[in-house]
């Protein structure tokens, strides 16, 4: 546990020092508006990163969350545009997300397909589905309540950020104080040993992928509320941000080590980096390079450090 806490402190330190650097370099970072922006754009990533943490902890991965965001956004968008109440719209998001997540989980748990293969397949199937559901149009006629959910402030802090914090606490409780959390870490440490110890791998797998789907549903509500539009490319590249957040937050790709707290901080860091690129006038096209290199650096350094500690 001590190791986990020190990693989160490192991430926190990075966030602070990067913020200071950006303020010194551009003078535009530490404004209320900009900070609110960073928090806002980190919300969706942070929420889904909680579920992705569980998945990566067990040694799996889900690259289809971006396409899942697309489909759930379409579902939410259509429901909202049809002026359903906020509660039904929310339910739509959660149920559609859960269904998509469950499908991924079933492919992995029952179909025996490797997570990367299964989710690579669903990534493309769902992206085509997003396009198909929109039929080359977009949804923009959204009610103001949805905007409030996405952009509203409570005590100067975005509602979305409060939601992220609340969910982080829920998942922190789940992973540290509940048997399921212990099971997830156990599976990540040694899946076969976990199975022999009586842990139901299938049930755990289904749970984490379905939960991630539900989280994507919540993220869709926030995202649609923030941007006010649903297009066929909604969510493209989202999976990269989520995975980067989890990896930067200290969760080991090999499974068995990591924390949801770290991932939430990782999401903040990812959002801060994106914000920094904009402030520094670096092209948005470079985001892939920056994220990709950061992921490799973080994982690489982690591995080298682990190796050093063992010898």
């Amino acid at each position: 546990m001590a190791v986990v806490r020190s990693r989160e402190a490192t991430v926190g330190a990075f966030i602070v020092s990067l913020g200071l650097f950006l303020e010194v370099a551009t003078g535009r970072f530490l404004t209320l508006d900009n900070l609110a922006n960073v928090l806002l754009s980190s919300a969706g990533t942070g929420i889904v990163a909680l579920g992705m943490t569980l998945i990566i902890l067990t040694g799996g991965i889900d690259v289809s969350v971006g396409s899942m965001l697309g489909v759930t956004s379409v579902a939410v968008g259509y429901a909202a545009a049809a002026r359903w109440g906020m509660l039904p719209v929310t339910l739509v998001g959660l149920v559609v997300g859960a269904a998509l997540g469950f499908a991924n989980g079933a492919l992995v748990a029952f179909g025996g397909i490797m997570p990367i293969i299964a989710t690579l397949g669903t990534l493309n199937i769902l992206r085509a589905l997003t396009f198909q559901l929109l039929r080359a149009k977009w949804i923009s006629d959204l009610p103001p309540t949805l905007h409030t959910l996405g952009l509203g402030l409570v005590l100067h802090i975005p509602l979305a950020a409060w939601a992220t914090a609340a969910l982080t606490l829920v998942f922190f409780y789940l992973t540290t104080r509940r048997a399921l959390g212990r099971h997830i870490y156990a599976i990540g440490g040694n899946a076969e040993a976990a199975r022999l110890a009586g842990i139901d791998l299938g049930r755990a797998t289904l749970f984490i992928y379905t939960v991630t789907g539900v989280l994507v549903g919540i993220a869709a509500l926030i995202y649609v509320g923030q941007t006010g539009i649903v297009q066929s490319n909604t969510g493209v590249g989202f999976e990269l941000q989520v995975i980067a957040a989890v990896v930067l937050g200290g969760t080991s790709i090999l499974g068995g080590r990591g924390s949801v707290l770290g991932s939430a901080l990782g999401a903040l860091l990812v959002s801060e980096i994106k914000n920094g690129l904009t402030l520094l006038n670096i092209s948005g096209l470079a985001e892939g390079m920056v994220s990709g290199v950061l992921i490799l650096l973080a994982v690489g350094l982690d591995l080298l450090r682990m190796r050093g500690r063992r010898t």
Partner: protein
Amino acid sequence: MRLGDRLIRLISTDRPRFLVLVLVLTFVVFALTTPDFATVYNTFNMTQYGVEIGLLALGETLVIISGGGSIDLSVGSILSLSGVVMGMLTMWVKVNVWLSALLGVLSGGALGALNALLITRVGIPALIVTLGTLYAYASAALVLTNTVPISGLPESFFALGQSQVLRIPLQVLVVFLPVALVLNYALRQTVFGRYLYAVGTNEVAARFAAIDVRAVRFWVFTISGVLAGLAAAVMTSRVASARPDAGTGYELQAITIAVLGGTSIMGGDGTILGTILGVLVITVLSNGLQLAGVHPIWQLGAVGLVLVATVLLNQWLTRRRLRLA
């Protein structure tokens, strides 16, 4: 024996014959339902496109055979970036186009080698490395060109991708067939091929047999990069420009083709013949969908479905075989 059992036996023990069946079926379906499909012109086009994805699939086959979770998600991005390098050298640095093409192929190898180093020396799982480089290389291609394709290449270069010999596209005869023959020979008749299958089947046993597992994996990822660079050269010649997003979605197709062709995701299994048949099936499928007016996004969606279905089928067959044994 019942038809169902016969079919299952066919799929599991004679993948190539099964694929020929699927290929013929798919071709016939499209020939009957889609105008302009069963023409010499279209078959010619299909084969041209098939060379590029085929080269990537061959590289992917080698990578996946090496086992241990080896997979290369970055092949599409390597294609894009090495194509851009090729275009930049020709148009901005004024290097001879054929020399640039060679350098482009080598740059593909370098990008693959970078993957290989991170995987074998630093120890980062192949999945993560190639996921990271998928985004990093793709982004680099976009940044270098500012999303604008590089065109204006000398017409002499187009001969590679756009000409034909006896109605067969030149790149099939001059690039794809030689590469396929060399790789097939390498897999079946050389020590490297033996080592590759050994590493993929049982990494620990291979290591105890004094096989340099890291070297084997290093080379397959590098070769995968070289093949992607080669595919970039062919594609740039065919479409007469170096597009920074040229390889988008190709990794999905390459992996699907390899798996469809009988390459086991676990490693240790796979043939060049199977992959070639897989290339034909996927190419016919994509082309048919395109001619039928289906939106390009569904071509990838369809390939995604094929991938999931194929792996499910493979898993089911394996489990059945284990149960009956």
